[in-house]
């Protein structure tokens, strides 16, 4: 039952992604690429790229994207509901308790323990994305199979982001344009 699978997968993504932003990324990769094979690593990376350039949280964007690909608009709706349902229940409960007792310390301290792990998991997902970018979807890592033009683009992007604090959206667009120009120049 594909709808149930979509629902349960995105329910887990919604339930276990703490810390916002990129925190959902490793969970989405785990469910959508590793466990169910709904997207290839390269499609997953495209999805993250698209999410970066459009408004909306990565988890909600992914639910829509994967849902449509696997089971059309109903699939997208079910995946999206799955992904926000845990938030609805948990956040409403906490808000209710808060408006009564006005204390969020315990919650914050649990989050403090999670944060370092979230960084590590994002790093791990980032490495899979880079492997897919540098060596293609088959991800056979060899020196000869390295796509050096992409390694160079990566290095330029890191420089633009870190040194010149350029807006990430422009950096990504620039990366795409450089690659297109290089490949038409025959490099």
């Amino acid at each position, binding site marked *: 039952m594909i709808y149930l699978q979509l629902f349960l997968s995105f329910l887990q993504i*919604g339930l*276990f*992604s*703490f810390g*916002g*932003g990129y925190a959902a990324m*490793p969970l989405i990769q*785990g469910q959508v690429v*590793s466990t169910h094979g709904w997207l290839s690593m*390269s499609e997953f990376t*495209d999805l*993250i*790229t*698209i999410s970066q350039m*459009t*408004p909306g*949280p990565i988890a*909600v964007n992914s639910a*829509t*994207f994967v849902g*449509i690909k696997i089971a059309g608009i109903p699939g*997208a709706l079910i995946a999206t509901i799955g*992904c*926000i349902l845990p*938030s*609805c229940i948990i956040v*409403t409960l906490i*808000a209710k308790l*808060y*408006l009564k007792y*006005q204390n969020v310390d315990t*919650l*914050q301290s*649990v*989050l*403090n*323990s*999670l*944060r*370092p*792990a979230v*960084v*590590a*998991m994002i790093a*791990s997902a*980032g490495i899979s994305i880079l492997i897919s*970018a540098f060596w293609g979807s088959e991800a056979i890592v060899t020196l000869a199979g390295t796509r050096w033009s*992409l*390694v160079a*683009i990566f290095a330029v*992007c*890191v420089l633009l982001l870190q040194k010149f604090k350029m807006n990430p959206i422009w*950096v*990504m*667009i620039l*990366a*795409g*344009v450089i*690659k297109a120009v290089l*490949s038409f120049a025959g490099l």
Partner: protein
Amino acid sequence: MKNKKEVLFKLFISTLYLSAFTFGGGYVIVTLMKKKFVDELQWIEEDEMLDLVAIAQSAPGAIAVNGAIVVGYKLAGIIGVLTAIIATIIPPFVIISLISVFYAAFRSNVIISQLLEGMQAGVGAVIAAVVYEMGLGVAQSRNAASILIMITAFVAACVFQVNVIYIVLICILIGIVRTCIHHKKEAVK
């Protein structure tokens, strides 16, 4: 407060607008929510909003969605939650639906596929920069437990391919234990 219909309508329009035009993730959107509901509409007290934002950031799920939930709940209870969530979901849902329709057709285009390939390296760089900033933050905290958690979690996820859900669960457990120990120490003092 004003009549409920008006509050719900304003809530719907405001969250829809914020969700449609906010690029750059959850942290940006909660800041804009504060601006809208505290400074502009004055529907929520500043202090209370800060705590609501803290709830949105520490609970699981997307921060933008959580932010909509806390604001919706505060203003109009469960109906407010539903109103704010639907308004927050509509823009990304519509935009990504349209993109997915074109994605399949576009991906086979030579220029687009080259563009996307380059952008994969670009997004890799963006993530690397984010990880660097966050990792540096953890390292500079000089908190041995945090650094240990970060290294262990990385080895588990990257080398041993441990399901990230287990890593999250273990960290929640560690967090609860740490809080208990901390409370005990405070009590002894």
